[in-house]
C-alpha cells in the first residue's frame, strides 16, 4: 500500500489561530493549483430552530447573498465571478456554511465578502418577501419528488423530541408566517465570530493570509449566542411506520434507524457496516454523493437489485453532532409489492444482525472507504470543506484521524453495531405507494 501512504491527511499542515473575538481560523497551504478556497462556517442549522420558525436557518442563508452595507445589492452580481470564481452556501441540520473558490488573487475579496456577511447583511423587507416565494418554490420542487417527500415524512416520524425531526427547508406554514424581524434577529444571534470557523486552503502564504483575516475580521465584536437547551431523543421502543399514498408511477421504500452521532463509539463501525450493505460512500458531504458508491458486490445490492426487487438501493450515514439516522432507500421495480421488497430488505438486515460479517467483507469495506478518502481530497474546495465541516460538528483535528479510525474497525465491532442499531424496535419504515395517476 505504498501509494496509499501518500494520501496526505488533509489536516497535516493546518495552521490554527483563534482571534480575540473567538473566530477560529484554519489555514492550509496547497500550491498544486493557482486557486484559493474560503469557507466560513457557523454552528447553526435547522436543529437550532424553534417551533414556528422551522426553515429560518436556510432562509437566513439565502438572505445573506443579498447585499451588505458595503456591497450594495447591485454589486453582488459579479463580485466573485470577476475572479473566475464560484460561490455558494448550504444549510443542514448542524451547520450553515458559505464558500468561494477563485483564483488566488481573489483571497482578499473572498475574506471581505465573508466579513461583510458576518456583520452587515441588509435584510431589505422587499428582498425578504421575494425570497419567501423562492424558498417555497424550492420546497415545492422537492415535493415533486416522492423520494424526497418520503424522506421528510419518515424523519419526522423517527424523532419525537429532537429538532432533527423537521426538514431544513422548514414547514410550509412557518415559511408563510415568518417575518423580516424573525430572520434578522436570528441572523444577529448566530452570526458572530465566536460561533464561526473560517477556513482558507490553497495557493496562499499562511502569514499573509492570516494578516488579511485579522484585517477583515479582527474588529468584529463577539456576541451572546444563547443556545437552545440540549435534548436527547428518547430511546425508540418499537417500530414506527409511515405510509404515503399519492398519485405516482413508482413505489419507494425507506427504513431509518437511529444512528450514532460522530462522537459515538460505533460511528465508524456503522460506516463500515453501510459499506458492506450498500457500498462505501465516503465521508465528505460536499463530495461523497456526487459519485456513485462501489456497490455491485454489496449485500443489499445483490439481494434487492440483482434480485429484481429494486432498481436502486442506497444507504447513508453522515457525521452529525448528535445522533441522526442511518437511512436505507430503495426504489421498487415496476410491479414489485412494497411488502415483498421490505421483507427481502429486512431479511438481509436480520442476517447481518444474527451472523455478523466475514473478515473479507470488513477488509473490502475498509479498503473502499480508504480509497474514497483519497478520491475526495482531490480539490482545495473539498479539503477546505472537510476542515470546516468537522470543526463545526466536532473538531478539525479529527480529519487527519479518519483513515486510522476506519482501519481500526473490527469485524466484532461491526457485528455488534448491526445487532444493536438495526434492531426492529429502532427502525421507522416508510412506504410510498403510488396511486393511479388521474387522466
Amino acid at each position, binding site marked *: 500500500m505504498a501509494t496509499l501512504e501518500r494520501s496526505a491527511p488533509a489536516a497535516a499542515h493546518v495552521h490554527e489561530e483563534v482571534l480575540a473575538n473567538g473566530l477560529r481560523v484554519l489555514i492550509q497551504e496547497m500550491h498544486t493549483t493557482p486557486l484559493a478556497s474560503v469557507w466560513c462556517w457557523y454552528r447553526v442549522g435547522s436543529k437550532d430552530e424553534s417551533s414556528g420558525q422551522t426553515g429560518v436557518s436556510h432562509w437566513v442563508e439565502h438572505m445573506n447573498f443579498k447585499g451588505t452595507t458595503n456591497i450594495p445589492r447591485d454589486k453582488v452580481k459579479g463580485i466573485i465571478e470577476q475572479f473566475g470564481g464560484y460561490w455558494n452556501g448550504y444549510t443542514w441540520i448542524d451547520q450553515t456554511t458559505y464558500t468561494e473558490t477563485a483564483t488566488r488573487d481573489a483571497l482578499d475579496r473572498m475574506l471581505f465578502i465573508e466579513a461583510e456577511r458576518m456583520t452587515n447583511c441588509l435584510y431589505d423587507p422587499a428582498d425578504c418577501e421575494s425570497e419567501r416565494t423562492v424558498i417555497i418554490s424550492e420546497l415545492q420542487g422537492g415535493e415533486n419528488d*416522492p423520494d424526497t417527500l418520503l424522506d421528510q415524512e419518515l424523519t419526522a416520524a423517527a424523532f419525537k423530541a429532537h429538532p432533527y425531526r423537521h426538514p431544513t427547508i422548514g414547514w410550509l406554514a412557518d415559511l408563510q408566517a415568518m417575518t423580516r424581524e424573525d430572520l434578522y434577529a436570528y441572523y444577529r444571534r448566530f452570526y458572530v465570530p465566536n460561533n464561526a470557523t473560517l477556513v482558507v486552503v490553497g495557493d496562499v502564504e499562511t502569514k499573509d493570509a492570516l494578516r488579511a483575516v485579522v484585517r477583515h475580521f479582527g474588529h468584529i465584536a463577539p456576541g451572546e449566542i444563547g443556545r437552545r437547551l440540549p435534548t436527547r431523543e428518547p430511546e425508540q421502543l418499537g417500530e414506527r411506520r409511515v405510509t404515503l399514498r399519492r398519485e405516482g408511477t413508482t413505489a419507494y421504500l425507506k427504513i431509518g434507524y437511529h444512528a450514532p452521532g460522530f462522537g459515538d463509539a460505533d460511528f465508524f463501525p456503522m460506516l463500515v457496516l453501510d459499506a458492506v450493505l450498500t457500498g462505501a460512500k465516503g465521508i465528505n458531504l460536499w463530495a461523497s454523493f456526487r459519485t456513485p458508491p462501489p456497490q455491485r458486490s454489496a449485500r443489499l445490492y445483490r439481494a434487492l437489485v440483482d434480485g429484481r426487487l429494486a432498481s436502486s438501493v442506497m444507504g447513508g450515514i453522515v457525521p452529525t453532532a448528535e445522533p441522526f439516522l442511518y437511512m436505507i432507500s430503495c*426504489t421498487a421495480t415496476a410491479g414489485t409489492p412494497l411488502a415483498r421488497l421490505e421483507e427481502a430488505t429486512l431479511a438481509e438486515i436480520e442476517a447481518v444482525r444474527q451472523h455478523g460479517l466475514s473478515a473479507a467483507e470488513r477488509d473490502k469495506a475498509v479498503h473502499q472507504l480508504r*480509497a474514497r478518502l483519497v478520491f475526495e481530497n482531490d480539490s482545495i474546495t473539498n479539503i477546505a470543506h472537510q476542515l470546516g465541516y468537522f470543526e463545526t460538528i466536532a473538531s478539525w483535528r479529527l480529519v487527519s484521524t479518519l483513515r486510522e479510525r476506519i482501519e481500526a474497525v473490527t469485524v466484532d465491532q461491526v457485528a455488534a453495531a448491526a445487532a444493536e442499531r438495526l434492531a426492529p424496535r429502532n427502525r421507522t419504515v416508510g412506504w410510498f405507494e403510488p396511486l393511479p*395517476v388521474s387522466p
Partner: protein
Amino acid sequence: MTTAAHRGLAPSRATLDNGAVVIAKQSQTTPAVTLHAAIAAGVVFDPSDRPGIAHFLSRTIDRGTRTRPADAIAEELDRRGVSLAVTVNRHVVSLVCTCLVEDLDTILAVLADIVRHPIFPAEEVDTRRGEIITLIRQDEDNPATMASEGLLSDLYGAAHGYGRRTRGTIASVEGIDRSTLARFHQERCAPGSLSLVMVGDIEPAAAIDAAAAAFADWEAPLPPPAQLDPVPPQAGRRVRVIPMMNKAQADIAYGFTTIRRSDPTYYAHWLMNNILGQYSLGGRLGDSIRERQGMAYYVYSALDANVIPGPLIIRAGVNPANVDRAIASIDEELSKLAADGPTDQELAESKQFLIGSMPRHLETNVGIASFLQTVEFFGLGLDYDVRVPALLQAVRGEEVHEAARRTVDPGRATVVVAGPYSGQPA
C-alpha cells in the same frame, strides 16, 4: 504509433495503429488516476424504430465478458473502491472511473475487457430491463424530465437522434434482447470509435504504454459516422402543456435549435448564453425571475452546440400560478437581448468569468479528463486550453448581439410546460 505534445495543459496524445486514441495527462494532487473512455455509440445511433438501445448498452456492457462473469467484475472493482460510471449522451457512451495508482493495471485490464468483450448474459439483460422500465416510469412522474424531453422532441421530432428519449419507451425496451445489444456493440464499438483519456499520478508515456497493452491488439472495422436528419426549421412559436396534476410545482422548458459546435459564431453564442442565463445566479433570467420577482428557485439557460445545430434550453421551476408570468418574463428578456445586445460591462464580465474559471474546471482529474474528451470529440486541438482566452477575448459586442438576434427570438420559441397546470400560455 504517433505522438504529439503541446504547452499549457499539454496532454500527450497517441493514435494506436488500430485507430484508438489515447490521451494522457500527469497530475500529482492525489495518488489516483481517472480513466475516461468514450465510444461513439450514443443515442443518435439508435435505430429510429428501436430507441433506447445505446442506453440499454450502457446499463449492460459491464455485466459480463467472455472471461469475467458479472460477479467477478463487480468484485474486482468493488474491492478496490472503484465505481465505474457508464453513461450515454447523444453521441457517445462514456465509461469513467477513478482508481488508486497501484490498481491502475488491473482496472485498465477490466475496463478494456468490458469495452471489447461484453457478452450481455440473458439473465443480466432481463434484470437490467426491469430497472430501465422502472426508470422510464419514474421519468414519466417527473415534471422536470417530462418538460425537457418534451421540448427536445418538439424541437427535433420524436424520432430524430436529438429528439428521442435517451431511455427509449417501455415498448421498445421490452423488445431489446441480448442479440440486439450484441449486434449494436459489434457495429459501434471498435478501436476507431474509442478515445481513452487518463489523468492522474502516472507519467504520460507509461499511461500510453499501459493503454496500448490493453487495446492495441483489438481489431475491428471503423464504424460509419452518424447519419443525422437535418434540423427541422422553426417557423413560429409552439407551446405545449403536459398536465401532471399530482405535482406541487410546474417545470418550464423553453428553447431553440442553435448552431454547430464548429460554427465560427460559437464563442459569440457561448458568451450570449452566459449573459442570458448563466452568469452569477442565472444571468439576466436569474436577475428577473429569481432575484427581482422571486418566482423560481432555479432558472438558467444551457447551450449545447453540437455535431449538428444543438439546442439552447431555458429551464425554470415555478409555482403553477406563476407559469404565465414566468414565460412572459423569459420572452421579455430574450426580446431585450435580441433588440439591444449585451452591455459592454456584461460582455467584459462574462469574458473575465469564463476565462478566469478555467483553472477551477481543470483542477481535478475528473475535470481535466472530461475537458480533454470534449477537446478530442470536437477536434479542438491539444492546446485548446491555451487558446480559449484569446478566442473569447476576440468576440465583439455586435457579434454577441447578432447571435442573440439569430437564435433567441421568442416568436420562434418552442415551449413545454409540465406540472399541475392546465392553462394555455401565449
